């Protein structure tokens, strides 16, 4: 306990770090899955989360019950993911990674502008799950329920995903496709099916993230999750873009570090946090482009 006291970290901050790490880990997986099969970094991933959050906000504004709001959130995010895939990802398949990056950048901007148009810059409130923001008291320490729920949900999702990838046929096809797409097709793996699957799972994860983030930040604005996406992308690159586990670890680490440092450091020191993070990104890209956590022998793709 005294170590924590010296570092000016209390249990709440630690829990916050874990929760943010868990949420960022899910986003990292979402981004990494699509990158694996499409070699495309989806800059617009945060907009999927934003769309889900707005769906929740609308549902709460219309007085819908909680479960209906969550269903709407999933429906909207999945529909948007599929639309992005068909309208943008597939036509761009085969182009250089940089073109794809610019294109998703454009889509991100487009979606943000649409949200600005539709909802205005003041945003809307998604109040349904607010009760999770209240604390549990465990032996004299207050921890907000959402932090524990976030960690549990993230662990569950990752576990399910692991089972899907390791134990099912389609999971095997997805893993193979992300290692060597051309050979997989030649063996009979249906390219489009694998990509659609990855896009749907990625979307589902975005919806989960939307639900959890709106608990902590009920005010949904057009740039909701934009900051988070950029940070997660940095984490994924630092952790290792090419493989799922390093990417997830990267997302988790940066979430955890941001959460803890954000709480522990006084404001005038924590404001330069982004600079440190992005300097780390550049260093990794220069020195160890496959990522800090990638110890495999696979061929580099970045």
């Amino acid at each position, binding site marked *: 306990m005294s170590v924590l006291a010296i570092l000016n970290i209390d249990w709440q901050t630690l829990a916050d770090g874990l929760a943010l790490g868990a949420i960022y880990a899910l986003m990292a997986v979402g981004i990494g899955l699509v990158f694996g099969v499409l070699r495309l*970094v989806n800059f617009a991933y945060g907009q999927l989360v934003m769309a889900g959050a707005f769906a929740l906000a609308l549902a709460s504004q219309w007085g819908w019950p909680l479960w209906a709001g969550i269903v709407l959130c999933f429906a909207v995010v999945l529909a948007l993911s599929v639309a992005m895939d068909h309208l*943008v990802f597939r*036509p*761009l398949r085969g*182009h*250089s*990674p*940089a*073109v794809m*990056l*610019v*294109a998703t*950048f*454009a*889509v991100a*901007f*487009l979606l943000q*502008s*649409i949200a*600005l*148009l539709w909802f205005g810059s003041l945003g809307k409130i998604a109040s349904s799950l607010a009760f999770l923001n209240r604390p549990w008291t465990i032996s004299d320490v207050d921890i907000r329920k959402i932090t524990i729920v976030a960690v549990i949900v993230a662990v569950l999702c990752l576990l399910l995903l692991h089972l899907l990838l390791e134990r099912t046929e389609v999971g095997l096809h997805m893993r193979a496709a992300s290692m060597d797409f051309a050979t997989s097709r030649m063996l009979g793996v249906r390219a489009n099916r694998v990509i659609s699957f990855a896009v749907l799972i990625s979307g589902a994860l975005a919806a989960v993230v939307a639900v959890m983030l709106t608990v902590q930040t009920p005010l949904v604005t057009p740039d909701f999750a934009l900051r988070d996406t*950029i940070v997660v*992308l*940095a984490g994924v*690159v630092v952790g290792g873009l090419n493989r799922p586990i390093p990417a997830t670890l990267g997302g988790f680490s940066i979430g955890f570090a941001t959460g803890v440092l954000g709480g522990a450091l006084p404001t005038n020191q924590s*404001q*330069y946090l*982004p*600079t440190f993070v*992005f*300097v780390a*990104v*550049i260093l990794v*890209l*220069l020195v160890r*482009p496959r990522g800090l956590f990638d110890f495999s022998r696979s061929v580099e793709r*970045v």
Partner: protein
Amino acid sequence: MSDTGRGAHMRRLDELVAPVVLVVAAALLGSLASISNQTYFTDTLVKVSIVVALYVFIGNSGVLSFGHISFVALGAWTAGVLTVPPSEKPAIMPNLAEFLLHRHVGNVTSLVLAAVVGGIAAFVVGIPLMRLSGLAAGIATFAVLEITYNLLQYEERIGPGLNAFSSVPETTGLRQAAIGAVVCIVVAFVYARSRFGRLLRATREDDAAARAVGASVYRQRLIGFTVSGVLAGLAGGLYVHLLPVNVNSVHLDLTFLTLAMLVVGGSGSLLGAVVGTLAVSAIDSWLAVAENGTSVFGLNLDLPAGTAEIVVGVLMAAILILRPSGLTGGRELRLRGRIAWRGSASRAPA
């Protein structure tokens, strides 16, 4: 068609004509507009400078850079800090460093210094980054953008931090913006025609072959990056003298808009940079006017605020998907008795 000799030199000068003519035409058009509308034209011409700077690097190297607006920002900061009247400085920049507090320079000097700072910054950033290509370069330059944004937000010893740059003398009028744009175009043209530009383009097409003939990919990219940093810095200096600039106006929005302009026009050519800027600006400005309520052929049009960005976004995505080489196809326009296109349609940045 021989590429040597004075004849060829004159032929190649033709390609400078179209971009310059377009800029001058835009300036003339602007001078005919009402005072309130002139700002749109001036703003467009400053953006031409930015997009030309982008072309100098992205168009010639084929490497994507998300970070050029950092150099625009640094140029803006340099010119702004040095031209705010000393009496006003404490008001908007209370924590300004000692040596900057009393420095004051003239307008042109501030622009030159802005360009110099942009160039130095680009050089320093380029030293580590020019080894990278493709996706890595895109991400790394994006990181540079974010680092600059973060530093300028909170470092109040060198600028206004989160405040806007008000009280900067508004010296960027139509004429100065046009001159600035022409200067950038000429520099870009000279660079592209020079040995450096041609070597850099060689690496874009096939960098293994280029290396085989002795072109150093790293060195040529660094040179191109630095030149484009100089132009970006200059544009930043012009920008800060046009509107009250703050950190957010030189961040993601401007990055997106200028990249869209380059992509729509065609990243492979100088003409593309100019055409793209003017075309997108025209659409953007017209839509901005329509957002305030206007009438077209007797129909009343009152578009909701924010439509402009959506249209630009759709346009950019559509061009990338349907015609990645942009409106000009990456080609320049030659005038020799008759109008002819030169150059192969280049692909979008790799």
